[in-house]
């Protein structure tokens, strides 16, 4: 619980202090004394560092997923901006390990899609490694077309499913 509160304290200024390596205090300040009024505001307890909630809060949900064109796996300008945001987070929290999940749309044969998802996950991984994130912290897994997020059979749904999603490992 102590570390969790310390985490929360740190989190409130996490982004502003991106470059600051301030250590969490050894001991927490004493709990506020019970007073009649005003009622004590509860200590803010945000998500733990490295949790998916923490990652999303820090980088924004939209930046956790990069998207690809049909049968492609190249990192375009939009993807690279997202991955740079991710890289900042993973530089700051250097103990956080994570998985990049590669996915495809349903309009491909099953086995090729597994290989294509693997290729996409690795494209995102390689970009993060080029930004200085150690490869040893990055796991990749391909789900091919097995785990769509958009369920329709149309171009808009397929575009959402051709993706590499970064997921932190708690």
């Amino acid at each position, binding site marked *: 619980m102590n570390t969790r509160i310390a985490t929360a304290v740190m989190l409130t200024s996490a982004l502003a202090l991106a470059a600051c390596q301030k250590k969490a205090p050894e001991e927490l300040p004493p709990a506020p004394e019970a007073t009649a009024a005003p009622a004590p505001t509860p200590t803010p307890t945000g998500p733990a560092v490295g949790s998916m909630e923490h990652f999303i809060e820090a980088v924004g949900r939209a930046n956790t997923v990069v998207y690809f064109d049909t*049968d492609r*796996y190249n990192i375009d300008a939009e993807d690279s901006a997202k991955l740079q945001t991710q890289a900042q987070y993973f530089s700051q929290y250097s103990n956080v390990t994570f998985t990049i999940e590669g996915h495809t749309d*349903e*309009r491909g*044969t*099953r*086995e*090729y899609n*597994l*290989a*294509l998802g*693997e*290729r996409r*996950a*690795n*494209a995102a*991984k*390689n970009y993060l490694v080029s930004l200085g994130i150690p490869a040893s912290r990055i796991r*990749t*897994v*391909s789900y*091919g077309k*097995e*785990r*769509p*997020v958009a*369920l*329709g*059979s149309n171009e808009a749904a397929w575009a959402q499913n051709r993706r590499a999603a970064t997921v932190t490992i708690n």
Partner: protein
Amino acid sequence: MKFLIALTPLIALVAAPVAAQNQDLGEPMGEGQEVEAVAVEGDDGDGPLRGTVSDDSSLDDLGIAIPAFATDRNVSTPANANGTAALGEELARVITANLRNNGLFKPTGPDSLPKPEFANITSPVWSTWGVRGAEMLVHGYVRARSDDRLTVGCYLYDMALQQRLVAEGWVVSPADWRRAAHKCSDLIYARLTGESPFFDSRIAYIAETGPKDKRTKRLAIMDSDGANHRFITTGRSTALTPRYSPDYKQLVYLSYVDGNPRIYVYDIGTGRQTLVTQSDNPTFAPRWSPDGRWILYSMAVGGNTDIYRVSAQGGRSERLTDTPGIDIGGSYSPDGSRIVFESDRSGSQQIYIMDADGSNQRRLTFFGGRSATPEWSPRGDQIAFTHIAGDFNIAVMNPNGRGLRKLTNGWQDEAPTWAPNGRIIQFFRTARNTGATSLWQVDLTGENERRLPTPVDASDPAWGPILP
């Protein structure tokens, strides 16, 4: 059974990794029994007669009467709660369904026919059957042996000639009684078409349940007609793309049981499985060589997928492709000398061919669109594949890459697999939007297409050879 349960914690302690990779598996089922061929009643020792079929009209108009198989004595059998007489009716029903479902003949089954006496199996009462308009007559018998096994005899008669065309008999264990019906179906089919048999075979596939974004996918097996259905995995982990070994003793398939896509070799007799290769890299698309000595698999290293082969006994893997593109899958020619496979080295999925050692790689398909999942016919004369040009359809071509013929018209039909005789192709069809999947069969004319009933949605079919 108690012994197995008692042993489980011990295995978990001493062999944690093995236990982990087995945690998605159901109970082992043991191996099936062999079917023994025997001489049939009335066989004069000269072997089956080889008369000429008198009717030369199109086969799908050929009427075949298939009355209940007779029994010499109606006795109890583990194969049927109502005894061998009831079993005789079941045998005729299975044969009728086989011959009807494949669109080849117009059979009439036992439920609308009189029952022949045991004594008439070898000498039909022609007058009884002549009025029914059937050109062909099937008779058979079932007899319980003292060892609990069953002898089943199967006879095909030409009504116009009033002559026996062929007859065979088999001894089966009670649990395998349907195999006798499939053997009889094969005998009739082969005699009337001149083609090789295919009914006495099994299919491995993936059973699918649940919503599109959270599908449960289980490895399952069944007979060629959908009977004797068994789940092999529990569904806790996603299972994909199974293939039977040629001797039916093993299955290779992809499982996410350790969280990563990896190929396992599952032993049907013991119910245990091992990784196809000890590697942290993901492996996909397993295939057997026709002689069962080799397993092909595809492995992604740093995102780049290539095809490897490894001895089915294990040992060192050999890399067969080395392009920066995705090289995946593979299907051996029947003689094992060549492999067709899929590669996007040209920029899109196309089919390539190489020698079995990876040499002489060259592109086969130039049809426009993409070409994927090649499967070499067991006869060697055709290669089935998924042709992607807008929609996904099953197509065939000659092994020289010419003679494209599209056989299906679904929105998404993929993953062809051949019947053991190379005359029927099975594949799976995905429905637009719902993602519902089902198994289908189509013959080489493309005219006879039918859905194979499965208990739940189904994909990734793999048809094994004729059972040993």
